């Protein structure tokens, strides 16, 4: 960032300039599409034509002005405000366009955001990320910001202002299936995380204490990580199918070749490497002199672990959990393929029916869930950092 005092007043942010250019180009692309039904490809409509000009003009202006504010290199707050203004403009255009385009287009007509919208959605978010990186808000501010964003999003969805959009129509016809899928997705992602933590932390502590075990365990876990996810889910089918058939009582507790169990197990296996490796790295992060002093003053190995190694390694340990959580939220989509449930169900149904909006119904909540988890975990990592380290 240019910070020279002389030229500061008129400094232009280079990423801001790039985002403005991209934004203007994206404005010329189709903003929304209208299709006769949910399967066929629709016709693109540019942003200024999605509704009456008097209605679209404020939205387009807000987007352009918002991106223009993103040029202010020395005022990250202004850039942040510009990003918010741009996003509000997009939302306004979507809310005006959806009912207007549907009007008189037929009973089965569908309206969806198109390439222009998605690009324009990304750009203010990048401006916002860039501004936030410069502002470097504390963990509590970031938490409040996240809560505000989620609150606004919930309010908009609840108000029904976007209900005419095709994605939400897909949702309207599957409300209970969506709730089930959401719960199943959360169970897969968080359940496998919890299981990986229960196995991985003790294993990581043992690996930290025992270099021989570390030399064996980490390569094996790395190897597991290299198995492609589809292949891993495929491998689980015969293995768990055989266990379900031959071990008495296994089927009764839900172990079978397809469904929740193989998906869950595959996710746990993928999670072990990040958890174990970060536990080892976290415990090794304590300064050797502090460990030596802890031994020398008469701490038992357990006291050393609890009072010195774990507190000092906690940020690294939590970073491991963050990696696993975000990774598993994404990977859990594939569980839909083997009957494991979750948002993947919609994605694969949508793929089979070439219904793009059904795919989005599965994909968008997954992305949102992963993003929110990543931000929340980052906040937690920051909060557990020793106070002295944050000062320095």
């Amino acid at each position, binding site marked *: 960032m240019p910070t020279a005092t002389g030229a500061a007043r008129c400094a232009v942010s280079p990423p801001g300039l790039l985002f403005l250019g991209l934004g203007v180009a994206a404005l010329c692309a189709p903003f929304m599409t209208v299709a006769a039904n949910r399967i066929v490809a629709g016709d693109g409509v540019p942003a200024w034509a999605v509704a009456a000009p008097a209605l679209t003009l404020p939205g387009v202006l807000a987007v352009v002005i918002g991106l223009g504010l993103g040029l202010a290199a020395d005022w990250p707050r202004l850039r942040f405000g510009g990003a918010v203004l741009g996003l509000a403009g997009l939302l306004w255009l979507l809310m005006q366009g959806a009912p207007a385009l549907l009007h008189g287009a037929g009973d089965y007509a569908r309206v969806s955001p198109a390439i222009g919208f998605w690009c324009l959605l990304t750009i203010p978010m990048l401006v916002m990320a860039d501004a936030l990186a410069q502002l470097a808000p504390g963990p509590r501010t970031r938490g409040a910001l996240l809560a505000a964003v989620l609150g606004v999003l919930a309010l908009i969805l609840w108000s029904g202002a976007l209900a005419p959009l095709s994605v939400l129509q897909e949702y309207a016809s599957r409300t209970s299936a969506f709730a089930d899928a959401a719960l199943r997705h959360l169970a897969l992602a968080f359940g496998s995380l919890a299981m990986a933590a229960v196995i991985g932390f003790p294993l990581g502590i043992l690996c930290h204490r025992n270099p021989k075990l570390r030399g064996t365990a980490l390569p094996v876990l790395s190897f597991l990580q290299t198995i492609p996810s589809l292949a891993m889910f495929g491998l689980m089918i015969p293995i768990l199918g055989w266990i379900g058939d031959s071990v008495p009582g296994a089927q009764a507790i839900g172990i079978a070749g397809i469904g929740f169990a193989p998906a869950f197990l595959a996710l746990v296996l993928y999670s072990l490497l990040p958890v174990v490796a970060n536990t080892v790295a976290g415990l090794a992060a304590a*300064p050797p002199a*502090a*460990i*030596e002093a802890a031994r*020398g003053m008469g*701490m038992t190995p357990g006291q050393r672990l609890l009072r010195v190694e774990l507190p*000092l390694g906690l940020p690294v340990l939590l970073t491991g959990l963050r990696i696993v959580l975000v990774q598993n939220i994404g990977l859990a989509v594939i569980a839909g393929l083997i009957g494991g449930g979750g948002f993947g169900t919609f994605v694969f149904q949508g793929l089979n029916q070439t219904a793009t909006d059904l795919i989005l119904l599965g994909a968008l909540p997954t992305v949102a869930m992963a993003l929110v988890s990543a931000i929340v975990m980052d906040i937690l990592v920051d909060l557990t950092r020793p106070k002295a380290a944050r000062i320095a």
Partner: protein
Amino acid sequence: MIEIDRITKVYDGVPAVDAVTMTAESGTITVIVGTSGSGKTTLLRMINRLEEPTSGEVRINGESTLATKPHLLRRRIGYAIQGHGLFPHHTVARNIGAVPRLLNWPKDRIQARVDELLTLFSMNPAEFRDRFPAELSGGQQQRVGVARALASRPDLLLMDEPFGALDPIIRARAQDDLRRIQRALGSTIMLVTHDMEEAIRLGDRVAVMDGGRLVQYGTPAEIVANPATPFVADMIGDVERPLRLLSLVPVSEVVENGEAPGAALPAEGNLRDALSACLWTGRTAVPVERDGAIVGRVTLDAIRSRAELRA
């Protein structure tokens, strides 16, 4: 009293410490000095059983260290190391209170002890108690490290190159502080260093280690005057021997009646300082004062006579 009795440590058939026997009196500072690889640190670490001896034993006040579990033994022995080893996530107060907490002292007793030690080390408790180690200077961190080692009033304080990470000026101050505090508390200290200057300055007794063996054990004056082996003489440095010898003699020992011009030296100073003052200002004698009053003078001739080898 610390008795080290034929203690030996063998690594892969090679003795790192070879049948060392020595006795340190309570309330004294014993400095173990040697080059790296001489076994001095291994010897120190066998006292609190951070290293288990291959054979031999250590007795503290008559009781064998092998009679107690290692971690319980270590809680009775202070341990301060180079680079202080403070816990970066704990405040100064929690760092100093670490061993008392392990010993389940009541909270108010720990707090009182922390404040007492901070005051002893010339650090204002109200100002420093709640700071983190990263917010202290190197010298302050080192003082907190020693305060932590002294917190539970241990029978013995082991120090492994405690001043190694400090710059020369702060190191000299830290050494003076240690001497002062050791006198005030009557602590028994065993300190490891590679620096003969530090050994002579701090030690009541100096043990010189070479190749795992104890080659000489005596007062600093004995070591400087009569090095037992060429190695010890080497450690002292032939050229500097007269100066080291002078630094061990207090001015009060050779003070004589008479007058001398110029600024006075304190009677507690040593002859090395007196020699330096003579040479620097071109005087043949300097006045000596005690409590602000001139008590006599020390002459260049008197200094010279003490610097000559009394073989």
